[in-house]
């Protein structure tokens, strides 16, 4: 059976499963549509949260980011998991006790202000829409690679699928679909990692293989990897090369950004009790950790395999610098060897490319830039070579090409394709639900027509979800050209607006509506301004006021890390403005006191 047929069967089966679940669990009331009737068990909810949260970025990109940077990009691992500690401790139980459907609803009630609620809706829409565009783009790319259709056809197939199960099932259907998608994506991620860890280190668990011994050389795997990459002039894998301050701020920005993402927060509204909300955050992290502890092994082993393929002498050489006494891989091998079919496959996507610059028939891959690369470049120049010849290696091919690099069977490749789609589709569905909730519940029912019947509100929720899918698909067809950057924007905005306002709403009785409104505005606007100053206004290149280099950054803080500073500004402004204005009314103080104690959360089910 050829690879295409295998892909078709595995992807087709996984889709049949998702749609079947959606039909079986379709929502009939607004409570089912927004919060799955608050009947989801913490373990199930944890699994659904994990699928909801782990997007195409976690599944496809993260291991690649770690592979090419090593220790410095541990920030993604700690940042994207540490947010769950904040969720469990600071937000989830209290928001569950509050017992409403959407994040802006809490902001509006706690700060007794329609203006605050609308600002909350705007933040939520900016965050969720920028995020969902990236997911839809990922869906299109994955479909076109594995089903051999055009990018736009792939995108429409994905949109039709999300439409079927998200519009029909609402939160209830999405929850159980996401459980199934989690199972598919974690199997897809783990199988190739286990095979590769076995090949390189003999460990079944990739997690321990990372700190194990490299079988072929007898050295510790990470020490061997350090030697292999430094031989070729790259920075060592386990070393610390970036600014410490920026690393800390970036990790913190990812953590509070995670805790402030509306589509993640609403998942905690679905469990029956406050104590379940706490446990549910723990279960979510368990299921996320199954992927996140495998990712550094996937990254380091993929980097090792790539380097060893390009310059086999790097692995056999034992002394530093001995790599160059062996020849690099030849052009002829790349063009003909069956085990290098993956290089030819990925060359057609443009994500991998090479060029024999000096015409010696070999493709030399080494680092010619920077302080680490200089001595190697000199040594290489002495051999008459003229520069790095592996001209493009995209981060994103690391996970998708991994099974091919390691020569795993065709069914593994098909499962990885289904896993990538599951990751992108589950996140897209969660985001669309957050968007439709904000539009139908906060805008239509909350502001435009408070007397709307439940049946009509449900209809409005479904229509707004359909419209958002359409908008996301159209934007995904013509991506504004900043898909990767908007993720940083989404996190920065969530960190600087939603997280602080929710936290202050729970932990302070003194913050009033003026404080919340000015705090949110100051946090968001300062973060937007800082990002646009370096990345260009609305990401239009050429309109940036300052060059985006470390030397230009304020105190060395990169635009992606600025969410932390934005959050701090939000806290300070909210406190200062609240101190200068009147105290919140008595009934609001009573509301804060009531959400602080768990008893009575069950009542919310009936509302």
């Amino acid at each position, binding site marked *: 059976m050829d690879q295409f047929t295998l892909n078709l069967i595995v992807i087709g089966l996984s889709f049949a499963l998702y749609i079947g679940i959606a039909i079986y669990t379709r929502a009939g009331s607004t409570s089912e549509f927004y919060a799955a009737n608050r009947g989801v068990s913490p373990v199930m909810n944890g699994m659904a949260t994990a699928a909801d949260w782990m997007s195409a970025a976690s599944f496809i990109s993260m291991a690649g980011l770690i592979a090419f940077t090593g220790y410095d990009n541990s920030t993604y*691992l700690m940042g994207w998991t540490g947010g769950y500690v904040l969720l469990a401790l600071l937000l989830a139980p209290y928001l569950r006790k509050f017992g409403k459907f959407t994040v802006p609803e809490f902001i509006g009630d706690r700060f007794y202000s329609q203006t605050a609620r609308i600002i909350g809706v705007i933040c939520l829409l900016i965050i969720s829409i920028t995020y969902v565009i990236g997911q839809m783009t990922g869906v299109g790319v994955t479909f076109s690679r594995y089903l051999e259709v055009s990018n736009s056809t792939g995108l429409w197939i994905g949109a039709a699928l999300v439409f079927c199960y998200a519009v029909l099932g609402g939160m209830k259907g999405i929850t159980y679909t996401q459980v199934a998608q989690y199972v598919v994506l974690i199997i897809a991620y783990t199988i190739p990692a286990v095979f590769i860890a076995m090949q390189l280190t003999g460990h079944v668990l990739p997690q321990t293989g990372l700190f194990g011994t490299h079988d072929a050389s007898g050295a510790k795997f990470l*020490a061997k990897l350090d030697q292999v990459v430094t031989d070729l002039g790259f920075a060592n894998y*386990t070393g610390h090369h970036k600014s410490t301050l920026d690393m*800390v701020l970036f990790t913190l920005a990812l953590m509070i950004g995670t805790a402030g993402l509306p589509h993640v927060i609403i998942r905690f509204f679905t469990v029956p009790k406050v104590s379940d909300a706490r446990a549910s955050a723990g279960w979510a992290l368990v299921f996320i950790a199954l992927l996140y502890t495998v990712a550094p092994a996937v990254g380091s082993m993929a980097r090792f395999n790539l380097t060893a393929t390009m310059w086999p002498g790097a692995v056999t050489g034992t002394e530093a610098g001995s790599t160059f006494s062996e020849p690099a891989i030849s052009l002829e091998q790349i063009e003909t060897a069956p085990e290098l079919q993956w290089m030819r496959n990925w060359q057609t996507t443009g994500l991998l490319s090479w060029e024999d610059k000096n015409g010696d028939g070999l493709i030399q891959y080494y680092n010619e830039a920077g302080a680490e690369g200089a001595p190697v470049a000199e040594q290489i120049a002495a051999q008459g070579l003229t520069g790095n010849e592996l001209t493009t290696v995209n981060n994103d091919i690391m996970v998708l090409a991994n099974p091919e690099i390691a020569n795993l069977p065709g069914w593994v490749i098909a499962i990885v394709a289904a896993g990538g789609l599951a990751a992108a589709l589950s996140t897209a569905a969660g985001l669309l639900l957050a968007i439709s909730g904000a539009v139908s519940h906060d805008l239509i029912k909350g502001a435009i027509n408070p007397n709307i019947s439940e049946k009509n509100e449900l209809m409005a929720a479904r229509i707004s979800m359909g419209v958002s899918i359409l908008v996301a698909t159209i934007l995904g067809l013509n991506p504004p050209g900043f898909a990767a950057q908007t993720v940083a924007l989404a996190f920065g905005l969530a960190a600087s607006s939603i997280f602080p306002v929710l936290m202050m709403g729970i932990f302070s009785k003194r913050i009033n509506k003026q404080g919340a409104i000015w705090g949110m505005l100051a946090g968001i606007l300062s973060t937007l301004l800082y990002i646009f100053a370096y990345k260009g206004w609305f990401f239009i290149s050429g309109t940036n006021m300052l060059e985006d280099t470390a030397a230009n950054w304020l105190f060395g803080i990169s635009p992606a890390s600025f969410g932390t500073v934005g959050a701090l500004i939000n806290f300070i402004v909210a406190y200062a403005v609240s101190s200068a204005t009147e105290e919140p009314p008595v009934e609001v103080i009573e509301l804060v006191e009531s959400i*602080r104690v768990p*008893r009575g959360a069950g009542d919310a089910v009936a509302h």
Partner: protein
Amino acid sequence: MSDRQSSNAYWQANLRIIWVCLIIWALVSYGFGIILRPLISSISIGGTDLGFWFAQQGSILIFIVLIFWYAARMNRLDREHGVDE
């Protein structure tokens, strides 16, 4: 009024638990994973040092333990103060 005092004591105890958790959370990630890494670099593990392990795996594992410990501790506190469901 005694009701208010009791819920005040509950909240104070809750805040203490949160602070303990947050200190551990910061220590294993920003601390051992980044800032204090040079301090514990003499402890080697699997071809590198302990700080690398904390940054790539250890902090995540400790986060999980931390959330479940917090959840269990809070359940006990809820029962002690009679505010459980």
